[in-house]
């Protein structure tokens, strides 16, 4: 007790009831004791006055108006937080699962793509494809005319299949025709050659068959050469066999 007075109230008691006294929540007798102490004590007197003044200052502060959109922002923030929490709860396991094995793969692919030679390869491939498509006649500006209906795609596929089949069949027909033609030409050529060779051979045979000097040799030639030649020629061509018969008769 700083202020030495004859008042029965002490400073500690004064401080304990000060708040209630300011609120007027104490009895009249206690209030009188308090006032008496405040008037006599050099510490508690100014404190009592200052506390009352402080309360007045504080009570002078008016309630501030919250921003107009505060309530809307709160509702958006709370509903947004709720939705975000739900989304995170759904996505987190997938992200965690995928993140483990996907991260090194993505990192390696990214590191590869970043190399200049890969970019150059991509550019060249793009350039080549563009050239090829423009050479074929594909115009990307006409892509909107592309018919992507299932029935149209099916018709295109059937048409493509039948056109390809027809083209293959035509190719083999042409090949067969050329082979036949070539065979005919070869046959005629062989026939012409054999006709040219025939007189020479007849003369040789006449000379060989002249066995007046050596009858044994004639026999040998006949049995060995004549029979085999006839057989061979019979299989070779019927016309030639006929020619051979004529030759025999003449000989």
């Amino acid at each position, binding site marked *: 007790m700083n202020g030495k007075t004859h008042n029965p109230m002490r400073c500690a008691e004064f*401080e*304990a009831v*000060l*708040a*209630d006294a*300011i609120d007027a929540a104490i009895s009249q007798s206690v209030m009188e004791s308090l006032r008496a102490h405040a008037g006599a004590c050099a510490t508690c007197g100014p*404190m009592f*006055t*200052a*506390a*009352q*003044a*402080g*309360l*007045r*200052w*504080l*009570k*002078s*502060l*008016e*309630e*501030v108006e*919250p*921003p107009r959109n*505060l*309530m809307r*922002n*709160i*509702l958006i*923030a*709370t*509903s947004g*937080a*709720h939705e975000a929490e739900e989304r995170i709860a759904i996505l987190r396991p997938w992200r965690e699962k995928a993140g483990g094995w996907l991260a090194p793969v993505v990192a390696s692919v990214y590191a590869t793509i970043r190399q200049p030679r890969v970019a150059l390869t991509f550019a060249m491939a793009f350039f080549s494809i563009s050239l090829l498509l423009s050479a074929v006649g594909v115009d990307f500006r006409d892509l909107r005319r592309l018919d992507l209906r299932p029935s149209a795609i099916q018709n295109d596929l059937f048409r493509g299949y039948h056109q390809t089949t027809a083209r293959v069949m035509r190719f083999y027909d042409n090949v067969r025709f050329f082979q036949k033609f070539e065979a005919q030409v070869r046959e005629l050529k062989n026939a012409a050659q054999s006709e040219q060779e025939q007189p020479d051979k007849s003369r040789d045979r006449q000379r060989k068959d002249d066995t007046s000097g050596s009858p044994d040799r004639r026999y040998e030639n006949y049995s060995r050469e004549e029979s085999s030649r006839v057989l061979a020629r019979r299989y070779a061509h019927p016309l030639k066999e006929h020619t051979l018969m004529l030759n025999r008769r003449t000989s």
Partner: protein
Amino acid sequence: MEDTQAVASLVQRCVAGDASAWEEIVHAYHRRIYNICYRFAGSAEDAEDLTQEVFIKMYRTLNTYDGSRGAFMTWVTTVTRNLLVDHFRRRKHDRLTDSLEATPPGEESAPTLGEHLQDSAPSAEAQVRSQETQRLVHQALQKLSPELREAVILRDLQDMDYKEIAQVLRVPEGTVKSRINRGRTELARLLSRTYGQVT
């Protein structure tokens, strides 16, 4: 005074997922929470952010509210106060009561609070009503220590009783009264230095 049963029913509806119940709660309490935040934090921007944070926290923890342990208003104020303490720690503005010779933060070239009050008109009644005086009192309030500030805000601005304040601040009622007394006295001292009068 809140109707305990009505509030309990509102909270139950909200926990069950009734969006309109939550809207009612926001509508009923956003003004009060904004004012507490504004008086404690000192700026309208911080108060707006803090109010939103308070409601987000309330939305997430509404199911933990137990009506038997206290009024919903006390619970809301406790949530607000905890966030304000966190905010205060984040900002590291843990300053004790400053003298009027100090200039407001960010206004070093500006006149001190004391000079400002001296320039004002002599009539206290007229000054109290004026916006400028309100601003200066608000500024003086920011110079109180956080413990004294929160006590006087809850008691003198939010009209909470000592028991509720003790519950919110988690201190005995006697400590609450002591802090309120010291807060009021300190505020008057800060302002009276300039005026030369406290009445």
